[in-house]
């Protein structure tokens, strides 16, 4: 079911600059104990766009992603300095309720991690705990979310079946559907395709293009071609620093910083 109607090209076809800022990161520093994983990162993520984060292993891109929904705090010894503003509000402010934050900023992980429940239960989990819907409304919500995750047709007869019975690619789309069920504003994706085969990867990339119309997407990937294919803006991380950030076309064809150039041309990483 590979659709050829969408021509996958570097994001130059989409308008940039007329999208408002959704997430503004200012002077972000992050420490694991004594080790400084993020050094003075500043960038702006625009609304309803796909922003890609690239860089070699261990450069801090995943850490940065997790800073956007405060998942870093789960680790012991973690310390964050700086501001991350979602629609103008600093998410690290004392009064902020992390639980509410994570409804608005959802995350999809590298390895699909469905719950040991049925397909339906997986998607219904978050709406239930946040009290978003019940009974027939909940069923509609699950159906809607699975449709948006391009999985509905494949599972509509298997809703009560175990989530583990799905293939890898289907499980990852299920995880995406699970996140969409709470109607977030931002969807963070941490190397969502690295555990999948090429066909599933392509499907998810198509999905991203559709999702982009409604949600803001930030994707971490070590696959540069993927970043070039799907994103409008890209940030290059190295050793915890944001070396360069800009339109994807520029980053991949005419980068400013030499280190960026070395990375995208494959000289290292």
């Amino acid at each position, binding site marked *: 079911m590979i659709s050829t109607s969408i021509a996958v090209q570097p994001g130059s076809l989409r308008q940039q600059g007329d999208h408002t800022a959704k997430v503004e990161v200012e002077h972000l520093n992050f420490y694991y104990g004594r080790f400084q994983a993020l050094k003075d990162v500043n960038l702006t993520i625009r609304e309803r766009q796909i922003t890609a984060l690239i860089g070699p292993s261990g450069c801090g891109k995943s850490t940065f992603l997790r800073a956007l*929904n405060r*998942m870093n705090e*789960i680790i*012991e010894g973690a310390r964050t300095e700086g501001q991350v503003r979602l629609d103008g509000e600093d998410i690290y402010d004392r009064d902020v309720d992390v*639980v*509410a*934050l*994570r*409804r608005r900023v*959802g*995350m999809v*992980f590298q*390895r699909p*991690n*469905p*719950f*040991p*429940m049925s397909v339906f239960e997986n998607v219904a*989990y*978050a709406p239930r*705990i*946040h009290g978003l819907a019940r009974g027939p409304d909940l069923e509609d919500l699950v159906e809607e979310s699975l449709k948006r995750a391009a999985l509905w047709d494949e599972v509509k007869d298997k809703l009560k079946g175990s989530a583990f019975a799905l293939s890898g690619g289907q499980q990852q789309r299920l*995880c995406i559907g*699970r*996140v969409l069920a*709470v109607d977030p504003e931002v969807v963070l994706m941490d190397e969502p395709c690295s555990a999948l085969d090429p066909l599933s990867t392509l499907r998810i990339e198509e999905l991203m293009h559709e999702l982009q119309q409604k949600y803001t997407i930030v994707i971490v990937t070590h696959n540069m071609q993927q970043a070039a294919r799907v994103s409008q803006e890209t940030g290059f991380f190295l050793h915890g620093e944001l070396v360069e950030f800009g339109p994807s076309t520029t980053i991949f064809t005419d980068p400013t910083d030499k280190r960026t150039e070395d990375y995208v041309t494959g000289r290292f990483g």
Partner: protein
Amino acid sequence: METAVDRTRSLKRRGIFTGRFGDGIFKWTTLLFAACVIAVIALLAYLLVADSLPAIRTFSWRFLSGRTWDPVHDVFGGLPFVYGTVVSSALALLLAVPISLGAAIFLSELAPPWLRNPLSFLIELLAAVPSVVYGIWGIFVLVPFLRPIEAWLGMRLGFVPLFSGPPYGIGMLAAGLILAIMVLPVIIAVSRDVLRAVPVSQREAAYALGATRWEAIRGPVLRYARAGILGAIILGLGRALGETMAVTMVIGNTPTISPCIFDPAYTMPSVLANEFMEATGRLHIAALMEIALLLFVVTIVINAIARLLIWSVARGAPSGVKE
């Protein structure tokens, strides 16, 4: 003439313990020792069956339904002991399971790292205290403590058959309580290990969806660990069924069946401990052997089921279980 150096260079084998022959002896010797385990279990099973045959032949199924245990007249019905064992163990689980689960959740999910080791050590100590020590504590501390409570319950709620007997102190309730204490560490330790075995990614997924700690535990984590926790409880049951000394010292050792939990009772291990040395009649010994056989079979089956359940979640031997 060979020098020492020449000797070591030579490829020829020297002595019987070098080379393949020595390794062969090694393999077969260790194998033999390992096989001792098989021998022990096989002999044990054979013995129990062979020695209980006279009783099986005489009473067949009436052994399990008969209420009279009369060595003098060679009438042996095992129901009182089965009843005592089952009820005391059930009582123990009723009390121990909720507390164990709460403690296990605390230990694996909530406790700060510096608290985990000391607490785990304390739980280990609970398991390491010998049965007789629990027994003597039971006789001199628990039972006197229970008497006034039983008296009060009898006064207020005496119309309930459960509380309708005289407040002996010594009896089913005391046994159930002591067993509960002894079973706690087993269930806690295994449940904790099972919960730890739940992959971090499950918790991460839940948190990322905006779940609170409790919602993450109640949902995916417990769901994932379900079978293993059931296994832990069954393992605890297995321990309770076979517990001898502490129960013998506080249960009263009277083969009666009574709905009142204040009344004394008798369990299978207790009757074995008390009557074995005194038994003279062939049928008496056979009857006792049959009880031992029953106990043996039941504990094996229960332990096997428990391990299967635990393995299905935590992969690999449930290291950390003191039986």
